[in-house]
């Protein structure tokens, strides 16, 4: 399979957009043909990514060696290349992305939100897929930026066209404004604001990377430069890190840049929320691991306590905000702020345990929160409300749906044995013992507060379960017939449930991929400060 070595990633990234072009030629009334085309191309992209897994050499190799690499000239004038490749860190995320995409297409089979128009919706999903897959494999800053930005357009339209039409009061406007309109533009402006500065940061790195003619946007080369200290003592470095921080932190989102998230997630159509939560948020945290830490390690050290503090605030704030919600979908949205806080806390420790925790946390959050949004969507589809005060006794009305909801909520609160546990637990472990030289006080306080956060997480998740699932059904549902889970929903959800259990019991499937890359990343850029306990924690799981 020689050709697959060179074409594997390109196929994974661009098959969906080919599908989008084909969809453009299919008549919009021919719904079956549209759905089958979309499904085939997402499945093909998924198969291609599985092909990459099969062909991937898990023997490791050190950080900054990539497999399935392609490096072709793209914009010669600025020495920017079409450089793609995967390593142990990006591989799980890439597969997560192609996988969730397939499930999203299956789920949308009979779940079209107003104003329907499957053709446009599927085309947008396909473009979104290309942007997401591309971000995880891009090894050139310009290419990364392009893919990072491509996802904005389809998501903007998804939220804006198919989103929540309920009017809401917006500060500064006298008339109430439809939620979808407010949320879509807010989402776009926040992200654009961050990425405009991120781009400035990338350009500054480019100019610092060498003399005229030797400058590069190549992440691999820049990582080498960064590890060898080429950017140490660069007076602009703190600003550059700050600029990139802004871009990534908005996407994650980190407190206090998170305010777009509850609006966007709540307003988005079900599939949109799922993709946002499952994959889009990871683009930010992935950017930290792939770009910020390796290229500017010195700045990463000095920023780490700040990131940790913001992450912990995010955990606590997210949890408390959840407790104040009356809308189920909004509660799930806020829970993302907390969960991504754990991911960022892991990254901020700059240790192998912490970064491993971050990657598995990202995957787990993708699966679990993705599933929660599916459930919230299906439930509001049936009840026509998301107000938890009006729900209740769900498990009596729809036993299967209620059961899955209970399971997923348990996974989300970090129950040991399910996927959500590892990310939270390990990032707390890592915070106890961060990279040498980082303030123990900050991180250990963070660990304690983070641990309180896990309790709060359990609190709001159980509280939600109690209000939605348990008790007697509200009187207003008397006489209503509710369809329990249908086959499309089951087809989309069961794989997620299985994976949550598998990763929960056997996290090695993820760690096998990430550990080598993460350990050597820490080795390489933070000068061999690995904590001795890594093997016992990771392999012992």
């Amino acid at each position, binding site marked *: 399979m020689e050709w697959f070595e060179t074409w594997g990633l390109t196929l994974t990234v661009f098959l969906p957009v080919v599908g989008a072009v084909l969809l453009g030629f299919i008549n919009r009334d021919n719904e079956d043909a549209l759905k089958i085309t979309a499904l085939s191309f997402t499945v093909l992209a998924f198969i291609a990514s599985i092909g990459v897994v099969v062909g991937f050499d898990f023997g490791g190799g050190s950080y900054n060696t990539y497999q399935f690499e392609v490096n072709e*000239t*793209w*914009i*010669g*004038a*600025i020495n920017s290349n079409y450089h793609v490749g995967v390593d142990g860190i990006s591989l799980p995320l890439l597969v997560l992305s192609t996988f969730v995409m397939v499930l999203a297409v299956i789920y949308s089979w009979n779940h079209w939100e107003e*104003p329907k128009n499957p053709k*446009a919706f599927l085309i947008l999903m396909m473009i979104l897929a290309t942007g997401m897959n591309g971000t995880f494999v891009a090894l050139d800053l*310009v290419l990364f*930026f*392009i893919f990072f*930005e*491509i996802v*904005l*357009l389809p998501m*903007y*339209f998804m939220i*804006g*066209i198919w989103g929540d039409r309920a009017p809401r009061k917006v500060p500064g406007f006298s008339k109430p404004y439809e939620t*979808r*309109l407010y949320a*879509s*533009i807010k989402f*776009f*402006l926040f992200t*654009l*604001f961050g990425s*405009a*500065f991120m*781009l*400035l940061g990338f*350009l*500054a790195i*480019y*100019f610092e990377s060498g003399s005229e003619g030797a400058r590069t946007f190549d992440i691999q080369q820049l990582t080498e430069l960064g590890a060898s200290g080429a950017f140490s003592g660069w007076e*602009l470095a703190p600003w550059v890190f700050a600029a990139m921080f802004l871009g990534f932190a908005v996407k994650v989102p980190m407190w206090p840049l998170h305010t777009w998230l509850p609006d966007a997630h709540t307003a988005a159509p079900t599939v949109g929320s799922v993709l946002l939560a499952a994959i889009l948020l990871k683009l930010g945290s992935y950017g930290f691991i792939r770009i910020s830490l390796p290229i500017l390690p010195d700045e990463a050290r000095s920023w780490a306590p700040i990131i940790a503090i913001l992450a912990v605030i995010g955990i606590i704030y997210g949890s408390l905000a959840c407790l104040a919600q009356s809308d189920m979908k909004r509660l799930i949205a806020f829970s993302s702020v907390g969960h991504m806080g754990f991911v960022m806390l892991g990254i901020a420790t700059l240790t192998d345990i912490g970064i491993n925790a971050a990657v598995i946390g990202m995957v787990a959050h993708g699966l679990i929160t993705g599933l929660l949004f599916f459930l919230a969507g299906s439930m509001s589809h049936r009840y026509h409300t998301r107000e938890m005060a009006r729900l209740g006794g769900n498990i009596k009305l729809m036993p299967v749906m209620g059961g899955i909801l209970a399971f997923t909520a348990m996974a989300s609160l970090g129950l040991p044995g399910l996927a959500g546990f590892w990310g939270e637990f390990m990032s707390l472990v890592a915070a106890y013992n961060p990279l040498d030289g980082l303030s123990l006080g900050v991180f250990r306080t963070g660990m304690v507060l983070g641990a309180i956060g896990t309790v709060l997480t359990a609190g709001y998740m159980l509280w939600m379960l109690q209000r939605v699932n348990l008790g007697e059904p509200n009187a207003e549902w008397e006489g209503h017939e509710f369809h329990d889970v249908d086959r499309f929903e089951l087809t989309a959800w069961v794989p997620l449930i299985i994976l949550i259990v598998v990763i929960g019991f056997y996290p090695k499937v993820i760690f096998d991929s990430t550990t080598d890359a993460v350990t050597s990343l820490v080795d390489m850029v933070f000068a061999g400060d690995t904590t001795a306990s890594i093997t016992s924690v990771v392999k012992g799981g």
Partner: protein
Amino acid sequence: MPYEIDYLALAPELIVVGTLILVLALDLVLQRENKYWTATVAVAGTALALVPLGMLAINGETISMFDGSYVIDEFALVLKGLFLVAAYIVFLMSHHYIESERYYQGEYYFLLLASLLGSLVMASARDLIVLFIGLELVTGPLYLLAGWRKGDVKSNEASMKYFILGVLSTALLLYGMSLLFGLTGAVEFTEIAAATANMADEPALAVAILFMLVGFGFKVSAVPFHFWAPDTYEGAPTPITAYLSVNSKAAGFVAMLIVMYQALPGAADIWAPALWLMAALSMTIGNLSALRQTNIVRLLAYSSVAQAGFMLVPFAAAAVAGANLEEAFGATLIYLVIYAIMNLGAFAAVIAGARKTQTGTIEGWSGLGRVDPILGVLTAVFFFSLAGIPPLAGWFAKFEMFRSVMIADPATIALAVIAAVNAVIAFYYYARVVKAVWLDDPVGEFADEAAVAPAGSLKLALGVAVALTLAIGIYPSIAAFVRDAAQVLATGG
């Protein structure tokens, strides 16, 4: 002294001259129902003029005529190509627009071709007199064309405002040039550069430069000389607005930069801060004013003010920091070329959309995407491209702009930050149009499908623009020759 004249080098200009005479003659003999032939001839002539241009480009030699006053180098060729292609698209846009409204077709194309001729001359001008003549030939016909819809008061206002302010700016420009001539005794750029090299303390030079900057500022509608633009843009026939915002603006822009760059490099201390200020103000005020617009053409007018600010950024930043102007010039040129393409596309979409919706308000466009998805997608492509969203061509323009301001100097970093914030603000109003088209529910009745199907020529204009917008966005290398052209100017000029 007899001059050597290279007729191949002048062929594009000669073809345009021939075409405009032919159009005028045809207009005399053709019956009213056959007048559309004038449009066909104009389109064909413009396309034909690209042929010798291509030959000259392949040849690649720098040809200098009339004692170096008229130069055909790669830089001039790129600009002429831009002007011709842009005019070609404008002709395609005009065809149906002008015919259906029963305006004077022959004269319309004659005047537009004359303006085109001016821009071709301007691109080759390397002395003040040729430059001035070229620039005035660009704007002169436009005073008339802006008032072409003479039954409409707004069009009269457009023409009048444009004329009065235009003449004022011309006077200022000429006054500045004459002062410069008085100081240096030269009109040719290289000679002026030599003479002004050590003249930085001369107050008269500062006055001359400021007068010229004000004159150019009016032409490119940079803040604070932009007040005519929205009214003129709104009142003029839409294809003329497109032409104003692309060809005429580009001509003024290039004239301004080339004078500063080639004739007055020694006086950068005087003009650089002024350009910096103009860039910052144009971006900010253009964008903030655009936020409040309800008319789509006025929105594009303010957007073009803001875009002029973005275009100035590389040059102003490099000049203020005393850095390499060559790179900056390349970035500005790339921005100009990409802006021309996407802005023409946006105007073509506006013409098509206005026919469909029978209104010029943004609100009236609500729900257009559901009635005409193709037009809706095209509108989204052009407006998001103007906003600089990848993978549409606009991102590369913004990227190059940001790349060229990455100079460690407080003034440039401040400008870079202003530009970054403005890029976000700009997105908001571009998105408003897309929001109306796709997100909002229809409010009005749309015109009947058959009656308003865009004319074939308009479809071609849209097709050309969208193809270029996507191609440059995905594979920006194809726009790289523009940068090389800027370097020719630096080394060869």
